């Protein structure tokens, strides 16, 4: 303190003020607590301006991360120097130099025509934090007390700014940490959502499975078919309700029991052998889709069933599931139908036999009429005066000829009514064709049908029942004749062709130019008919005759119009007849 106080009283007053200021400065850190460095500097500048009655106070603060220092400034009331702290900083740097480190601790400068004492104060050891520049137009500035206050303030501010900086670092770290936490949380949340979706999906699938299983179970239980699963040891592992209805065993009686319990004793060995073979070789002997077998119920009753199998492999173990349908009723119905068909076809056959017999009777009548007429003629010629011997002899010869033929026809008729089913002999099919054509000559002529035959010489012989084969050809030709009945726009033609088909079979084709068949596959079925009259038996009988002769019969549409009815019969080799 180089200056002399004017008086003691003033000196005391001055010191008192200084003490007050120092106390005020000591209160500043409490004000600064939690503040940003810039706020600290601002508070400091305001406090210094007021305490030291400065005309100018300026601070330059280096803020972490920022390239340019922050500049703040305060001017005393009524003073004008520059508009912004940056301008003030510029004016100071112009007069003191660019580097604050080089600045003198005290200098008297003219700043914009005003004589100002400038005191720079460093914050931090080397002013690495900040510089504060205090300026006053008072010539005695700074007094000793004022220097004390400046340095105390600078120390306090340094600590506060350092703390604040530290806090800022911490806060930034905390923010970064927060951000990281938030990010991680978001990631976790996302993962969580995915997981819960997955869980939901899994749950849905599970529910679906449960539902589906329930449904399957309902179906299984409601099914009329018995469903039985067995494992690879042949033990029953699952049965449905129908099993009890069908076999009479409660499910509990069957689970864990060999499958063979449901089979007749005679089948068990076969089943076990087949099952073993399948498990080892994978070879199936049975058709897995619907095989008819005999099943045995608890009461020992045997009944026919139709079984379909399914196979499933789980964890290396095979499970077989059989779907079993009781076909007793179906079988019975089939049997009834078959009996009915047999009866009806017998009736139908009798009907066609009737027609056939009528044709034969007519055929028999012709030679018989001729024989009688010839006989009378012969008598008359012999009784004539003079007797017409030549004429009588001719008549007698005709009697023998026609009588023989009548006898042959009679033999055929007798054979027809014989109860014995088949009387097989070696026959020339061509001959049979001719015989039947003769039988049908009347119908052929009255229907104005032209008949073309193309019969193979090398046809050989077939072994068959003459009457049945006659009936076969009769029915086939009759069918052709009837098919052409409605035809008016084209000639009615029947073509009969016989051929050797391979070394083993004789083929006969009968082609008509009739209305044709829409369903050639069905024409041989009993009751199939397109005619208004008729039982639909004619061709069914043909098939039964061909079947009885180990032949084959079929129908195909003829080119243009009409139908070809074809049959083959096995050819007999050798010369015996």
């Amino acid at each position: 303190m180089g200056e002399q106080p004017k008086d003691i009283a003033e000196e005391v007053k001055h010191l008192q003020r200084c003490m007050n200021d120092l106390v005020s400065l000591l209160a500043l850190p409490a004000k600064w607590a939690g503040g940003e460095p810039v706020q600290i500097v601002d508070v400091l500048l305001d406090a210094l301006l007021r305490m030291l009655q400065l005309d100018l106070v300026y601070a330059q603060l280096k803020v972490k991360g920022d390239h340019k220092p922050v500049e703040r400034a305060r001017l005393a009331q009524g003073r004008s120097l520059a508009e912004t702290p940056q301008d003030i900083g510029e004016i100071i740097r112009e007069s003191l130099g660019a580097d604050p480190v080089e600045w003198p601790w005290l200098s008297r400068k003219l700043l914009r025509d005003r004589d100002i004492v400038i005191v720079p104060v460093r914050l931090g050891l080397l002013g690495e934090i900040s510089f504060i520049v205090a300026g006053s137009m008072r010539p005695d500035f700074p007094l000793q007390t004022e220097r004390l206050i400046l340095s105390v303030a600078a120390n306090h501010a340094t600590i506060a700014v350092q703390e604040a900086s530290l806090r800022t670092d911490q806060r930034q770290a905390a923010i970064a940490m927060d951000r990281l936490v938030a990010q991680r949380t978001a990631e976790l949340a996302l993962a969580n959502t995915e997981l819960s979706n997955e869980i939901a999906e899994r749950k849905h699938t599970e529910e679906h499975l449960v539902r589906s299983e329930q449904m399957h179970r309902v179906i299984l239980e409601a099914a009329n078919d018995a469903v039985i699963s067995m494992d690879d040891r042949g033990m029953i592992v699952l049965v449905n309700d129908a099993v009890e209805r069908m076999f009479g065993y409660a499910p509990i009686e069957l689970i864990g029991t060999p499958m063979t319990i449901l089979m007749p004793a005679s089948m068990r060995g076969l089943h076990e052998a087949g099952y073993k073979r399948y498990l080892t070789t994978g070879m199936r002997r049975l058709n897995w889709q619907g095989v008819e077998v005999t099943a045995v119920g608890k009461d020992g009753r045997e009944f026919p069933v139709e079984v379909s199998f399914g196979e499933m492999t789980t964890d290396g173990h095979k499970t077989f599931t059989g779907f079993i349908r009781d076909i007793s009723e179906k079988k019975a119905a089939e049997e009834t139908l078959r009996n009915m068909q047999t009866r009806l076809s017998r009736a139908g056959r009798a009907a066609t036999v009737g027609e056939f017999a009528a044709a034969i009777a007519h055929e028999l009548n012709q030679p018989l009429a001729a024989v009688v007429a010839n006989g009378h003629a012969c008598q008359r010629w012999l009784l004539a005066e003079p007797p017409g011997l030549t004429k009588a002899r001719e008549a007698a010869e005709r009697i023998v000829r026609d009588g023989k033929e009548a006898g042959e026809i009679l033999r055929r008729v007798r054979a027809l009514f014989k109860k014995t089913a088949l009387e097989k002999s070696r026959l020339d099919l061509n001959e049979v064709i001719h015989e039947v054509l003769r039988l049908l000559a009347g119908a052929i002529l009255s229907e104005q049908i032209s008949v073309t035959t193309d019969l193979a010489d090398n046809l050989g012989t077939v072994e068959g029942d003459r009457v049945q084969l006659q009936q076969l050809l009769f029915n086939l030709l009759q069918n052709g004749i009837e098919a052409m009945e409605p035809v008016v726009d084209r000639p009615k033609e029947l073509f009969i062709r016989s051929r050797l088909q391979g070394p083993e079979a004789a083929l006969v084709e009968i082609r008509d130019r009739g209305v044709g068949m829409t369903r050639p596959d069905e024409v041989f079925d009993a009751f199939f008919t397109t005619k208004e009259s008729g039982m639909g038996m004619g061709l069914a009988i043909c098939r039964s005759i061909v079947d009885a002769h180990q032949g084959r019969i079929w129908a195909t549409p003829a080119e243009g119009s009409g139908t070809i009815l074809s049959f083959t019969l096995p050819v007999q080799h050798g010369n015996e007849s």
Partner: protein
Amino acid sequence: MSSDSPIVFVVDDDLRVREALSSLISSMGLRVGVFGSAKEYLEADKPDAPACLVLDLQLPDTNGLELQRKLADVDSPPIIFISGHGDVPSSVSAMKAGAIEFLSKPFGDDELSQAIKAAITRDRMARQHRSELTELQRRYTLLSPREREVLPYVVAGFANKVTAAELGTSEITIGVHRGQIMRKMGAQSLAELIRMADRLGIAKKSA
């Protein structure tokens, strides 16, 4: 045998039957013509003699009954049907349509012979009837238009006087026409002229 001696036509598709019937009918002293179908029969030249037709019911080209219908329009000989089937409905139709007989094969020679005799007798009568009619028709063509006009009055029994008044002429002229008519038609009496007019289908003049 003279051209007037009767002839029997046989139509049957069965050669054996044709041969036998041909021989049998010959042995009865009758002429025979055999045909295998209706077509052959229809197309054949047949002698102008009393005849009959032995017709099989089942013919190859047409039904015997159908041929019978076809022949009904022309002056065809009477028909004897023969059939292999004892077909009652067919025989009924055949008889209704004027068949002489319906014989089921086989038949005896007497049955056939009697049927043929009956048929030929009927044909003879028919032929005679036909020839008489032909003669009457020939005679009728000789009449003058005025005589044809007068004829219905004469056969209706009108007196010449009445006829003359009706036709606006004299009684004497009508008397001359009447004499010409009797002469040209060859009628010996009014009663005979009336029968002739009847057969010619000339309507009497009503009073």
